[in-house]
């Protein structure tokens, strides 16, 4: 049952992810954004199957509920029309392929080194309590740095959108 659900969700993630970037039927940016929502929701499903319940909920809340709403706003704000078929230049394609191959190679190496299928067991259930305990004992400093990062983000928002107001 769990294996079946895993295959369903990972297939959904991959298919929807593919449709975000290369939808053969339409070049509408809103459609891409909606498929991105589906990708994220199916990834949340994968997180649930990995016992990472907090992560699953937060994934939907922050990415599907906030980030992509912003994407939609941007698409509508700029009134983006159907994106034209791009002309590919050889240089870009070669560089892209090289980048893809190197990142892919690193990923595959890392996955193989981690010992997949060697009878691994999860160390902890991804409950909110366990996560909070870890976050507020071992990872307090990264947490505070996160706070600074968010502050920088807030200032950046103002600088980006209100240049005319002094």
């Amino acid at each position: 049952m769990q294996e079946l659900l895993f295959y369903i969700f990972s297939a959904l993630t991959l298919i929807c992810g593919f449709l975000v970037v290369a939808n053969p039927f339409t070049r509408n940016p809103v459609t891409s954004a909606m498929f991105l929502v589906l990708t994220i929701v199916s990834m949340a499903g994968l997180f649930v199957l990995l016992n990472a319940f907090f992560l699953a909920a937060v994934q939907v809340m922050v990415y599907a509920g906030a980030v992509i709403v912003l994407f939609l706003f941007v698409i509508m704000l700029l009134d983006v029309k159907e994106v034209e078929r791009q002309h590919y230049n050889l240089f870009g394609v070669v560089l892209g392929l090289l980048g893809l191959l190197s990142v892919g190679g690193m990923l595959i190496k890392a996955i193989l080194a981690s010992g997949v299928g060697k009878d691994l067991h999860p160390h902890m259930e991804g409950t909110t309590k366990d996560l909070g305990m870890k976050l507020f004992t071992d990872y307090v400093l990264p947490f505070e740095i996160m706070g600074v990062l968010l502050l920088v983000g807030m200032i950046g928002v103002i600088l980006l959108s209100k240049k005319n107001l002094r």
Partner: protein
Amino acid sequence: MESQIAQYIPVLMLFGLASAFAFGTLLFSALAGKKGYRSRIKDTAYECGMEPVGEGSARFSVKFYLVAMLFILFDVEVVFLYPWAVVYKDMLEQNAHLIFGSMMIFLLLFLVGFVYEIKKKAFDWKS
């Protein structure tokens, strides 16, 4: 059922039922509904009976965009508040100063940003 994963199966069921209901009613009403005539006037966008002017999707204020960006940042703050709230009472037993102090510093940083937003009139919709 102790396992938490199993608890998500009823959620899937509810999702299935709700979407079946929603799309089922849409389909049924499309089949059962009255078929009316179409005309050029009936097909126009509703603009209080006047001929539609310009395009349907007008451009809107950059402020909505600003709100959406701030929403992401504040949402992340809220997300961090929840694991903290859940462990707060337990952590008071172990290391009260750490759990109280760490979040107070975090919220102080948040407050600095928030005051900056207010001073820069990010939430001022009148102007």
